[in-house]
């Protein structure tokens, strides 16, 4: 895993925590818009939106990180990021976007050992700017390569509808 390097970061919040995404990965920031539900996907996939003619998936970062769901309000934002591998776009739901911050290389520390083990593989460093602690995320790692469709592959979709035997 490579440590996050210095540069400009988009800072957003989820609850009380502050997170940073490298500005290079961020395509745009938009207000909340109508999301079309896509059934049979993971709960953190809220559905799809129409971004100027492009249909892109929406991932709720709160749910992805196992935080409580929160009703979207006027501060809720969609941060559209681009995947490195295939240039695909995905919109991340965050509580609010605060600023773009220049974080120096020297201000970034490696995440603690335990965090880099498995599910926190998307944490690339901890930015310590003055008295703030900013968790620097790797967008590709957050979205992951896993299939967003949480399919009950082993159950034939029709299987559930068999007449139950008493």
């Amino acid at each position, binding site marked *: 895993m490579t440590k996050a390097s210095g540069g400009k970061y988009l800072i957003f919040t989820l609850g009380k925590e502050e997170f940073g995404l490298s500005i290079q990965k961020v395509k745009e920031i938009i207000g909340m818009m*109508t999301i*079309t*539900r*896509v*059934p*049979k*996907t993971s709960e953190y*996939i809220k*559905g*799809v*939106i*129409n971004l*100027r*003619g492009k*249909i*892109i*998936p929406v991932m709720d970062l709160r749910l992805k990180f196992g935080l409580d769901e929160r009703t979207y309000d006027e501060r809720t934002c969609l941060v559209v990021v681009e995947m490195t591998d*295939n240039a*695909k776009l995905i919109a991340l739901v965050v509580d609010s976007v605060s600023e773009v911050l220049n974080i120096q290389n020297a201000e970034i520390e490696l995440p603690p050992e335990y965090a880099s083990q498995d599910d926190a593989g998307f944490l690339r460093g901890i930015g310590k700017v003055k008295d703030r602690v900013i968790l620097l995320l790797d967008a590709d790692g957050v979205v992951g390569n896993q*299939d*967003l*469709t949480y*399919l009950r592959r082993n159950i034939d*979709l*029709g299987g*559930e*509808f*068999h*007449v*139950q035997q008493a």
Partner: protein
Amino acid sequence: MNEQSSLDPEIIQDFMSETGEHLSRIELDCLELENDPSNSELLNNLFRSFHTIKGLAGFVQENSIQDISHKTETLLDCFRKSGGHVNSTVVDLILKSADIIKYICKQLVKRENISITTSITEHMTNLSDWVTLLGNCEKTEPNRIRLGEVMLREGKLSEEELLSLLKKQKESGKNFLLGQLAVLEGKATPQQVVESSRKQEAMRGDLFKTDNAESSTMRVASEKVDNLVDMMGELLILQAVMEQEAKKRFTSDDIFMQNLVRNVRITKRLQDSAMSLRMISLKPLLQRAQRIGRDTAKVLEKQVNIVISGEETEADRNVTEKLAEPLMHLVRNCVGHGIENTQTRVVSGKPETGQIHIRAFTRRGHVYIEISDDGQGVDHDKIYKKAVEKKIIDSVKSYSREEILDLIFLPGFTTAKEVDSVSGRGVGLDVVKTEILKLGGKVEIKTEKNRGTAFILKLPVNLVVINGTVIVIDDNSYIIPTLSIRKIEKVYDSNWVTVNGQRRMVKQGKDLFSLIPIDKILELETCPENLIVVIEQDGKAAAIPVDEVKERRDIVVKSLNGEFRDLGYASGATILGDGRVSLILDIENLIRMGGEKSDDKGFGR
């Protein structure tokens, strides 16, 4: 080859696409020539094609291609001059030349060093031998028109003047060109000579000219067209949004609305023509299949005549592109399995030569390609036995004829005893079915013992714009492709048929439709019960309960990102007039989900 790698990729690209066109023309002409050996026009076409390739190869400095096309050209010229008829050995030779050029081209694209294999050198020698055999034609330039003749014809020189000039030219040891001498001797002005020599060029050009009618086409990079179609899609979406907004604000007699309506009409036409740019004729595809069939027949030593028709049929490039492989497998299948060998055919009272007909046509928004043969037909019993033997089906249950026939599309299924170069591994038909399904099409098979077999491929004309019906389920809009809708009906309590307390079917008069459990599929808490939309595909029908049916409109199909590919219930998405995304229901899958539960049949999958 170092100079090759320094070549501009664009030049190579141009070379490839132009050469490719000529090569496919060569194939077609060859096949036609075989059937009609006295046709001198075909010989001329072939000659021109090779000549052009030779010229093109000069640009990319590809000597081997130049050599081969030159030799082939010479061979063709011999026939052209002598008026001799081309037999199938010569056609093979010409086709081989085309194949070799294709092969070299492939290496050229990959920027590999051109490897001249022994088979290529052999072929070259073979070509030269033929030319020697036919009398060396290489030295006489084809129908060369001399400058003197032109000037004579134009009255710029008299016959005596020309003769004396020619004499002087000979005396000077051919150090001067005729035109130069004419000027030096004061018989003609330089302008006149230039004029005549242009004329001479033009006349010579006539001989090599390609059909001008065909060159009124323009080569455009496919990405540009794809881009245009994409933008068109966005424009349509935006327009739908604007229409919806405008309807709220203006009355229909408002000047703005009138203009908007006009705008809509123009956009529609614009969209049609943008779409038509991507429509390409199936001709090259069918020709290729014909060629493959011919070659397969040669390998298997079978006598087969392959006819193609409906080449003018068009389909979206995205569709045609993916048809090449399935068609190849089907044709090989027809030649390999369908057509019997000559003895068998004679015994069963059929003409010695087998017939294969590849036919394309359009009907109701779909393109059909039918490949039929007059061979032995698919042996229903043999498949059944093999399937039981392989434990694919259960000998206790009974299966319909269609179900048995459908088995031949299973991967690895074959009735052939041995694997040969053409078939027997049971891969081909599986590929066909998978590819066609991926395109949203289907494969049908009709067969009759000893009468022949027909495979019918049904495909959507394009994958971009379809007519969809917008329905609402639980406050969400979904799209059902209008072509798949049989009817929309109101349902009453008495229409439901329940099994163990669950609504399973809908009764409408004499019809009984199985109900698609849309609430479970879409993870809803309640199931709509107002209306049903009866959907139908491949003769199977089922009912989707919906809350509301809104409108019917042309929609732009967008594929869902890879992440959503396996949803099962949706095949794509579109953007509606309100700017919202709406999922397009996958009719085929839904029917399967709903339909199969009512009668527990199938192959134990």
